[in-house]
């Protein structure tokens, strides 16, 4: 056997250019005669626009043009929403506000000037006459009687009511020994990608082509949407996602500025650049989470959960961005988590508020589901006097029950939930820790052990379940020299697929990693694709690469047989980069020789085309369902409420692992973002709709010094959904870790009788809870 790359801890091939600063982000792109755009944004959360006077700005030094909503309303179509829930109310969403503004940060006008400083100076010269209206910020108030209405045409702030039922929920509650209920908040978060958004657009009038460089996770889907918004033929529009400095779902979208900057380039005949400031990023790039839930569990005394009833309010913000209304439906689908809970009822009310839209944020609806349920499992354990492990173990389905049907209508592909939890308990030394916890309590020290067992829905997904298709594409192009170019329709942006896909190629074709180049993110080069989100790039996009490789191998084998003078193709084997005859291994050719012969085309079998490349579109038959168990161990300082980590153990099962370094990297990053939600982060708007946490000096994201040593381990249960057995791991950390950490803190507080606290668990909140106990 030759070298195998799949499964090995191969360092990322992307990292050298990223670490040495030689990669190209949107703001690195400079075009000849380029000019700069700056945007005037609403300072009110809710106001009528009486007048927008741009005359002074037009006269300002260096200013080339100023446009308002009225100027572009005919030319640019509305910002699209892809989700189609029944009876969904869809407000008109112009790229620049018209009669009203609905949140602080809503674009009102755009200035184009010779440099970004002059553009920004001119923004201050635009005079806006606002008639302020009362804002509604709290989603519960928004749906109550008498609240200010965000979009008057609807007469209500309820954008949708979505329900999901399975089994017989009424019966479950009739048969329950105990009903445990809890109201909880999953706070609004700001994704804070390191690179803010940015767009450069250039129009070539000769070709009639518009090129848009933008920091996006979905270049192809964006191209289709932008073509519609701008009235351009899709094949005259080229979208390029250069290096993307983090997205986490916030760049899985179609933004007003992307269409606006494209329009400006066409209208002005000059390339235009717009780079979002951090302040703008906080105000007008999508936020995440923002759910309030009342959960009721019908349970037996032995801990068996018979049924769950959820009443959820989703804070939508003022407008729907691309997937805003769809995100909470993922919460509903995953509402029974890794447990065999046959009866379920979920009701989700989507509420308009005078705030930035919420949308996908790493995990997108599933962290909320896992948080609700994992908090409930601990609340149930507390009510029944059982160990949290016991309650979980009792409700897990057995490994032989997979594919496991859920009350929400899903079929979990494969799993062994007991094994993952046992492994995590072993690693952390669970029994001993519980004893130590008892001893420490005698000394007035408060150790907390928090468990989270989870299952997530990944590899999105079968096409019927997604608004724009859920397949993924790949082209494998073997060049005449035997080098291999992969064009992936997934648009990875930091997740490491350039490495993972090269590993698959190297193993399948017997070439070196360095012989493989993975290209993505340019719609003029890469065939149509869907993008990177929902932990899909490897499981779906990697499978597409694998499928294309099989087609390439088939053709190459056919050609090799011909060149070797063998009529029976079945007698040709391909191993370690060599084709040879099974019954006469001395008769052989290298892969390179076959590739070259395919291009020289001097001696091809009849009916075989020259060249050696193949494109494959992979349509998955199901989602995948990664799972695992995380255990956090913390100590709470009862005097100050400060939380210190003692241990953090993560056992994740993401199916077959292509590269353990990539998996660890994804898990680490996800846990850190979870830690942010659990302990630090919250997007706070005041009553008038001003974003109080509008800067990084006010909004606390985790720093390196906040992060404990992360002990990661895995179980490996292959997925039957794809031939590689991959499940996906991009979001596992953010799904699993938040409740593990919160459960740990609340476990520490159990002696004080504290049953629940809403995130973020900042020291003052904990101190008050202890003091109030």
């Amino acid at each position, binding site marked *: 056997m030759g070298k195998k790359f799949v499964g090995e801890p191969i360092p990322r091939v992307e990292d050298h250019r990223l670490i040495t600063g030689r990669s190209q982000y949107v703001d690195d792109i400079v075009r000849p005669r380029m000019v700069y755009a700056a945007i005037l944004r609403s300072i009110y959360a809710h106001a009528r626009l009486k007048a927008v006077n741009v005359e002074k700005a037009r006269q300002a030094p260096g200013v080339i043009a100023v446009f308002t909503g009225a100027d572009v309303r005919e030319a640019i179509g509305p910002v699209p929403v892809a989700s189609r829930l029944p009876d969904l109310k869809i407000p008109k969403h112009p790229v620049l506000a018209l009669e009203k503004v609905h949140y602080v940060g809503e674009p009102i006008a755009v200035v184009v000037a010779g440099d*970004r*400083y002059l553009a920004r100076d001119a923004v201050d010269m635009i005079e806006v006459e606002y008639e302020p209206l009362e804002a509604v910020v709290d989603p519960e108030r928004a749906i109550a009687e008498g609240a200010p209405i965000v979009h008057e045409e609807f007469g209500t702030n309820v954008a949708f009511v979505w329900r999901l039922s399975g089994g017989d929920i009424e019966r479950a509650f009739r048969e329950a020994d105990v009903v445990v209920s809890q109201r909880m908040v999953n706070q609004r978060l700001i994704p804070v990608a390191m690179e803010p958004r940015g767009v450069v657009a250039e129009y070539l009038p000769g070709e009639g082509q518009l090129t848009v460089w933008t920091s996006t996770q979905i270049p192809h889907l964006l191209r289709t949407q932008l073509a519609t918004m701008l009235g351009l033929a899709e094949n005259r529009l080229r979208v390029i996602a250069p290096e993307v400095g983090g997205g986490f779902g916030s760049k899985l979208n179609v933004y007003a500025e992307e269409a606006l900057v494209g329009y400006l380039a066409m209208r002005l005949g000059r390339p235009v650049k717009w780079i979002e400031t951090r302040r703008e990023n906080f105000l007008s790039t999508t936020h995440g989470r923002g759910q309030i839930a009342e959960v009721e569990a019908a349970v037996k005394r032995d801990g068996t959960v018979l049924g769950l009833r959820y009443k959820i309010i989703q804070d939508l913000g003022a407008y729907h961005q691309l997937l805003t209304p769809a995100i909470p439906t993922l919460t509903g689908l995953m509402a029974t988590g890794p447990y065999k809970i046959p009866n379920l009822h979920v009701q989700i009310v989507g509420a308009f508020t005078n705030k930035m839209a919420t949308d996908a944020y790493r995990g997108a609806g599933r962290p909320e589901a896992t948080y609700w349920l994992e908090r409930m499992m601990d609340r149930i354990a507390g009510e029944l006097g059982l160990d949290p492990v016991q309650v979980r173990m009792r409700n897990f389905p057995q490994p032989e029950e997979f594919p496991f049907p859920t009350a929400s209508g899903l079929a979990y592909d494969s799993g062994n939930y007991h094994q993952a939890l046992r492994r995590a308990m072993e690693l952390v030394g669970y029994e001993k820790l519980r004893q130590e916890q008892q001893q420490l309590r005698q000394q007035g020290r408060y150790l907390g052990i928090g468990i989270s067992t989870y299952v997530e829905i990944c590899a999105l997904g079968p096409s019927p379940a997604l608004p724009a298709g859920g397949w993924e594409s790949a082209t494998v192009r073997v060049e005449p020299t035997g080098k291999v170019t992969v064009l992936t329709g997934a648009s990875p942006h930091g997740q490491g697929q350039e490495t993972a896909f090269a590993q698959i190629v190297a193993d399948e074709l017997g070439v070196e990693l360095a012989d493989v180049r993975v290209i993505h993110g340019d719609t003029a080069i890469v065939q149509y694709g869907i993008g990177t989100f929902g932990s899909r790039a490897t499981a779906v996009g990697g499978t597409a690469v694998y499928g294309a490789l099989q087609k390439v191998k088939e053709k190459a084998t056919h050609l090799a047989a011909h060149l070797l003078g063998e009529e029976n193709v079945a007698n040709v084997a391909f191993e370690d980069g060599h084709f040879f005859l099974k019954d006469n291994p001395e008769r052989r050719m290298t892969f390179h020789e076959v590739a070259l012969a395919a291009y020289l085309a001097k001696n091809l079998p009849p009916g075989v085309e020259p060249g050696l490349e193949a494109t494959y579109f992979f349509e998955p038959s199901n989602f995948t369902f990664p799972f695992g168990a995380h255990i956090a161990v913390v100590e709470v300082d009862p005097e100050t409420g400060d939380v210190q980590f003692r241990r953090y153990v993560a056992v994740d099962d993401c199916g077959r692992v292509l590269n353990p370094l990539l998996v660890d990297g994804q898990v680490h990053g996800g846990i850190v973002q979870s830690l942010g939600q659990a302990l630090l982060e919250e997007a706070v708007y005041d009553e008038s709709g001003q974003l109080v946490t509008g*800067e990084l000096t006010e909004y606390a994201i985790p720093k390196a010094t906040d992060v404990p040593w992360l002990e990661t381990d895995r179980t490996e249960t292959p997925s039957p959904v794809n031939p590689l057995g991959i499940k996906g791991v991009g979001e596992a950390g953010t799904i699993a870790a938040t409740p593990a950490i919160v459960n740990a803190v609340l476990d520490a507080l159990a002696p004080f009788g504290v049953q629940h606290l809403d995130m973020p668990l900042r*020291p003052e909140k904990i101190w008050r809870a202890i003091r109030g106990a």
Partner: protein
Amino acid sequence: MIPTAFEYFRPANLSEALALLEQYKDEAKLLAGGHSLIPLMKLRLAQPQYVIDLGGVKELSYIRESGEHLLIGAMTRHVDVETSEMLRQRCPLLAETAHRIGDVQVRNMGTIGGSLAHADPAADYPAAILALGAELRAVSTKGERWIRAEDFFVDMLTTALQPGEILVEVKVPALGPRTGTAYVKVAQKASGFALCGVAVVLAVDPNGVCQDVAVGITGIAPKAYRARAVEEALRGRALDASVIANASAKATEGIDPLEDLHASAEYRAHLARVWCRRAIEQARESV
């Protein structure tokens, strides 16, 4: 995030800097590291017409001994204070405080003079400067004067510096015999500034009786302050746990604590009391 236009000067020495400041007065801002000024300018909360960057004034970057005192030039970067062997030996409190400022990037750029002259109510240095009884030397084209630390901080973001004056030097006493020090801090998690920072200089006799003590507290009030009531409750007493606890309970006596998104006034006061006690204990152990 994009400042208004300004004219930038980078004088090579102090007299050039003073001349520029004299010329442009209130319309000029001194840049001494820039970790406070530049963010304010990017948010357009500060819009100076002229920026005088002291980064080229090398004569203001030094740490040296002068008898029983140590002199630190105003343009000395936090990292140099943090890692100075001389300060670690003879005035460890200042090095320890510098170590707790921001992060590595901030410490590599920020300067002691810049931080003190900005007078952020949650900056770290003021607590230590007060506890050490430092003196600060200000220079203008008209001459120079020494300002006691306690007189230097006037209010939030306001110091005793007069228009045309540049803070050039900080003078702190070298550590005496049987003296312990401590700086403890609870950081505001987003900014890294102090929600509460307590600096203690504590001299005890061989019997464990407090001979002298100074406590500086930052982050709690509009300006850093000396916790006199705490000091009085310690001086002349044997430092057992209850004496320290009772004294620390006075950490916010006469103070109206700040309240913001990150901590209520009540919690800030509580933190001040708890961390005052912990700082005194730590200082006692370091004697």
